[in-house]
């Protein structure tokens, strides 16, 4: 730090983020509802309330649920 005086760091690292076995938001183990392994999604991505009622009306249509 050269000649500059600095205080002690007063921020503690977020402990759970670095504890083995604790799931991180970005973790590979985490599974998001409505997202399929091939990159497609279904209506469950948008809603948890009777999602099957909100799918496309024809089978040839892509499943493009709203945000």
């Amino acid at each position, binding site marked *: 730090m050269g*000649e500059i005086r600095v205080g002690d760091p007063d921020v503690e690292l977020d402990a759970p*983020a670095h504890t083995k076995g604790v799931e991180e938001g*970005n973790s590979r183990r985490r599974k998001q509802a409505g997202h399929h392994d091939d990159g*497609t999604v279904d209506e469950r*991505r948008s809603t948890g309330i009777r999602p099957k009622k909100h799918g496309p009306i024809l089978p040839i249509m892509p499943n493009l649920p709203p945000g």
Partner: protein
Amino acid sequence: MTATKPKPAAGKKPGELVEMAWDPITRIIGNLGVYTKIDFANRLVAECHTTSSLFRGYSVFMKGKDPRDAGFITSRICGICGDNHTTCSVYAQNMAYGIKTPPLAEWIINLGEAAEYMFDHTLFQDNLVFVDFCEAMVKQTNPSVLARAEATAAPGRDIHGYRTIADIMRAYNPFEGEVYKEALKVSRTTREMFCLMEGRHVHPSTVYPGGVGTMPQPTLFTDYLSRLISILDFIKKAVAMNDDIFDFWYEALPGYEEVGRRRVLLGCWGSFQNPDVVDYKYETMTNWGRAMHVTPGIVVDGKLLTTDLVDINLGIRILLGSSYYKDWAGQEEPFVKYDPLGNPVDIRHPWNQTTLPDPGKRDFNDKYSWVMSPRWFDKNSGEHLALDTGGGCFARLYTTALAKMVDTPYVKSTGHSVQISLPKSARLPEMTLEWKIPKWSNALERDRSRAYFIAYAAAMSLYFLERAMERMRGGDMRVFAEFDVPDEAIGCGFHEAVRGILSHHVVIRDRKIANYHPYPPTPWNGSPRDSYGTPGPYEDAIQNTPIFEENGPDNFKGVDIMRAVRSFDPCLPCGVHMYVGGGQTLKKIHSPMFGASHG
């Protein structure tokens, strides 16, 4: 060399040098000050130093933090192009974590960044740069030029609708002019486009390593498209008006090409990743760098030296010399001795840099700035090149034009120019604009390229939209990739901030940041003299700039110097404080905030 040419000794009278200083010159982070000695007898800037009086220390306090936070923290470096930092940090983190952003997310980031270029360039060009060229300003600084403008017909009248050059200049008047007001509305629209893609302007809330949190859906892209089409008329008109006004300037003031002129030494680190190619691995960086939709490269004297991001990365050197820092070479152990390809990494490379601040008194013969001197080491010539960015847009168009690698339906590089096609819009028909490589790297050409790059970003975003919608309709909605933070890793990200080159270098140890160095464009442009005595680009461009202003020392506004500095896009002009020598201080408000009467 970049050092200014020695002036002829004959005719130079030391007594006629008047010291003038503008400090701070802009709202930019780093408090830029320009200190000059002006030779009023020869109408020339004899000497120039640029300084920054603000120390920030991102590289100091990033140490020990969670690397996943880097994008959010470094975004706060800048209040106008923070998202460029987030994006660049995400690129660096992707490399460190060994992940790849899914293609749809890559298009979303590209669309967000394109909106940022359109937003920022429009705001800066029409609301800030043209204050220096507007009727109210020229009336005070060069009345004879205004008189001539009144009598000169505008060649692009059919496109923009202004009869004479003076009519265009009136449209640029702050607060009152039509273009000034319309540009504010366009900035609002482009900002909305940005927010659709990246959540929030200017510190994005939905851009993370491995992808985006933006929910893809058809209306996301159609909302963007309808806004984009609504501003195409403005963009087409802006290009025509820019050409008219700058061509007139060369004609009305012969020799104006020397204002802000320096040797063509340009750097561009590339922008808009191509998801078909990019995998964020260092080993393949050469390929995916060249696949970018703005080609990275280094141009020296009009020749393209390299387009290889690995070469570009290894050549970066952070020199001291006139900066308030202690040298870390010999004091600290290098973090990275060899890159993943086995090439040696210099101790002065950002991966190995340690920031050791050492405040002191400002002394123009010794240390005078908080900005370090980033240079690019050319291994063929052995020179440390003081690259500039030409305000970003100039270098981007220059390298893309020379490299001949960009070939999309809307933008094509020809090897000597860039062709930009824009579709039909509300009032104007389909148009193909062509930016040709100019003869000089000077203030007017930097400013002119800004209008063309707005068109470039608009045309590119049409292509990105088509590709994104095609993918979405195919059902691929993946926008993020999961990852774990590794115990040890290194990464580098290369991007273009709106005003030029941007790199982030990260070293992770024990899952924490061990070293982090962002290098945005202004340290390159605004750097002081380095340890070899080479002046930074602002200093180099201002030294020997001829003075065309008709005012004498008493009511001198320094508009030619301001045009030279602002052509590099150092963010925003603000209060100017001039020191006219002999203990006499002249205070002028040089800001559009107080209306045209204040110039």
